[in-house]
């Protein structure tokens, strides 16, 4: 069923734009794809002024990092303070003025399950009520607290060994970044809207069409993070894989330098060419680029889920202490949550994997076989 949906998405635009315009010819249907040339960098202008804008995404990505950082502090905030930051976008140390928030874009695409946002909100309660009170005392089966790995690293986990901040931020990889990007902004139905979204009539210097902006917003979820608001110079918009921040760009860089060399340029090129295609009115080319982006975003999520789960299985099989697996398993847990926003898995399939991870005493007694079977499931769905 899911395939059917995506297949049909591919073909939306020709139908919406099939009327033969006699008045103004924004959309040329007979053009040759070869004439659309992507610029060297993601920069687009109208009458000499940039039309690229994704400040809303920058703000949300910064807020997500702030919440994550606070979750790593002993007694970082109360549940209601966390919820205010998450849902209202206020209450941070830095006084954001963008009026955005993370919660409103968590599992918020047309195909996301509405049950997911609550799972994120509930993490704050577990963190504050169960983990914070035992921050420095030793965790054990069923008891939250601190664990120490055989290499001396310390982490704070709940009674099942789950590190809440990792589940949260790795979960947002899919629930916010991938979901907003590939299930919302880069879909033909969003981009095409009512068929007037790419009308350039009357646009002045630096003004953009809705369609151009939607594409930029998709771009912004991957490349929008910077820390200039706090005086830093990190900026993911500087290139194909800067790797700053705590969300997908970081893993794009990791895969590019590791298991999937070249992936960063493929994605970056697709974003540039898709945006150029919008300017040229070539929606087939645009949708082809969106599909390339989706394919590779999905790959990043699935690859990291596989890496973390199989890594933990190897550690368990080696006979190392259980606690050595918790940090990676917690990251894996978040990436498994994220899988439902790829084209590989549904919400209920993901929930049953999460249940499997949390069954019994959770990470304290999950077996290498269990993990390997989940890895096999993800590999076969993703083709990785």
């Amino acid at each position, binding site marked *: 069923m899911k395939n*059917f949906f995506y297949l049909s998405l591919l073909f939306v635009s020709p139908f919406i734009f099939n009327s033969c315009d006699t008045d103004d010819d924004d959309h040329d249907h007979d053009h040759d794809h070869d004439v659309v040339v992507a610029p060297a960098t993601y920069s687009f202008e109208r009458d000499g002024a940039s039309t690229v804008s994704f400040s809303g995404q920058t703000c949300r990505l910064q807020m997500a990092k702030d919440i994550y950082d606070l979750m790593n502090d002993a007694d970082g905030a109360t549940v209601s303070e966390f919820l205010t930051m998450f849902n209202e976008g206020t209450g941070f140390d830095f006084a954001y003025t963008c009026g955005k928030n993370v919660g409103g874009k968590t599992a918020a695409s047309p195909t996301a399950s509405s049950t997911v946002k609550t799972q994120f909100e509930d993490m704050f309660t577990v963190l504050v009520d169960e983990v914070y009170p035992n921050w420095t005392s030793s965790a054990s089966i069923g008891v939250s607290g601190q664990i120490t790995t055989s290499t001396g690293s310390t982490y704070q986990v709940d009674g099942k060994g789950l590190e809440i901040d990792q589940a949260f931020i790795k979960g947002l990889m899919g629930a916010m970044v991938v979901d907003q990007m590939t299930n919302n902004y880069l879909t033909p139905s969003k981009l095409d809207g*009512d068929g007037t979204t790419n009308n350039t009539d009357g646009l002045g210097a630096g003004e953009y069409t809705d369609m151009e902006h939607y594409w930029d917003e998709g771009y912004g979820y991957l490349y929008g993070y910077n820390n200039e608001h706090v005086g830093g110079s990190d900026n993911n918009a500087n290139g194909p894989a800067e790797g700053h921040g705590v969300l997908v760009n970081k893993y794009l860089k990791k895969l590019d330098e590791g298991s999937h060399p070249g992936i960063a340029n493929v994605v970056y090129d697709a974003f540039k060419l898709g945006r150029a295609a919008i300017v040229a009115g070539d929606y087939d080319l645009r949708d082809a680029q969106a599909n390339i982006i989706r394919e590779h975003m999905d790959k990043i999520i699935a690859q990291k889920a596989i890496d973390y789960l199989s890594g933990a299985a190897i550690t368990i099989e080696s006979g190392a202490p259980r606690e050595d697996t918790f940090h990676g398993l917690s990251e894996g847990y978040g990436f498994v949550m994220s899988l439902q926003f790829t084209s590989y898995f549904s919400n209920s399939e993901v929930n049953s994997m999460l249940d499997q991870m949390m069954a019994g005493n959770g990470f304290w007694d999950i077996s290498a076989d269990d993990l390997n079977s989940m890895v096999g499931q993800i590999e076969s769905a993703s083709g990785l």
Partner: protein
Amino acid sequence: MDMKNYYYLFAFFLVLSSCEPDEDDHNSDYNGDGFDRSEMLINWADNIIIPAYDEFNNTLNELNTAINSFISNPSISTLDFASDAWLNSYKYWQHVEMFDIGLAEVINYKGKMNIYPTDSYLIDQNIESGNYDLDNNNNFDSRGFPAIDYMLHGLAESKDDIINNYISDSSHSQYLSDLVNNMISNTNLIIDDWDSYRDEFVSLSSNTATSSVNKMTNDFIFYFEKGFRANKFGIPAGIFSSEPLPNTVEAFYKKDVSKELAIQALKASRNFFIGKFFNYDLEVSSGLVGPSFEAYIDYLYSDNDNLSDLIQTQFQEAESKLSTLNNNFVYQIENDNISMLQTYDAIQAMVVSFKVDMLQALGVSVDYVDADGD
């Protein structure tokens, strides 16, 4: 894959047809695809819309009778009688709310009949002042079924206390009577208009933004997305807010009928999708069927596993999720909102099927967009 080839073929025909000078808006049967859209419009008008309005009007008159007998003799039995008549008419209303076309659209008919949550303070104020115009849009949330809900079930905790409001102060009776009379007069306007509008409606069969097929298709999907999905499930379950908002359910004051109304609304949507003739007995599931979206999709698709099968399966899934909910949505949301959200998910999947896949299959452009973005 077969489907892919089919799409290309279809796109080809569509482009051809839309390139021809389109001067015959009013007598074109075809959309270039061979499907008789006029027959579909005739089915919609004569077998579904007009009969549904007529039957709905009958139930409103019954509600009026029941309210009059309650007003002239306020008692628990006449109150219960009025409450039953209100619920019955409210169920039929679910079968006409989607037809926001023609005069209904012009006068904002659905906005006069079913805006909730109702504003109990404004209603109290209106009763107190005796100075109100229910057709004025300032009163958008103090009229229609939700206002009657408050007047019959929400004025006080106990039935006796509710009745005492009417015994001690005739302005309550006046307001209740004005509410139902306003609903009847607006409904009569719509029904009268369909007498003449019917021919225009069925004649506009082409594929333009203002044709009846395109408008009604958009109205249907808009209703399904907003009137059904968002109003009945999404808003109360907290989809659009940081917390659930149980006080925004339909029939908030009666409370134990939100599910029943939602079941009727889903049934009405399904009936319209398959083209089932309106039946005054809402519980009868069999019956004659004429051309509608299902037949149109089946005509265009030759595959066995086609979109209309998918949508039928999704209707069953939505019905099955809905059937697990408590009759009282306030209770449901406060005790197990996840089930409410899962029902919402099943309905949302249908919105995607309608708004993306069905519109694309029919070659109809969406005429409304969500204004969400950064």
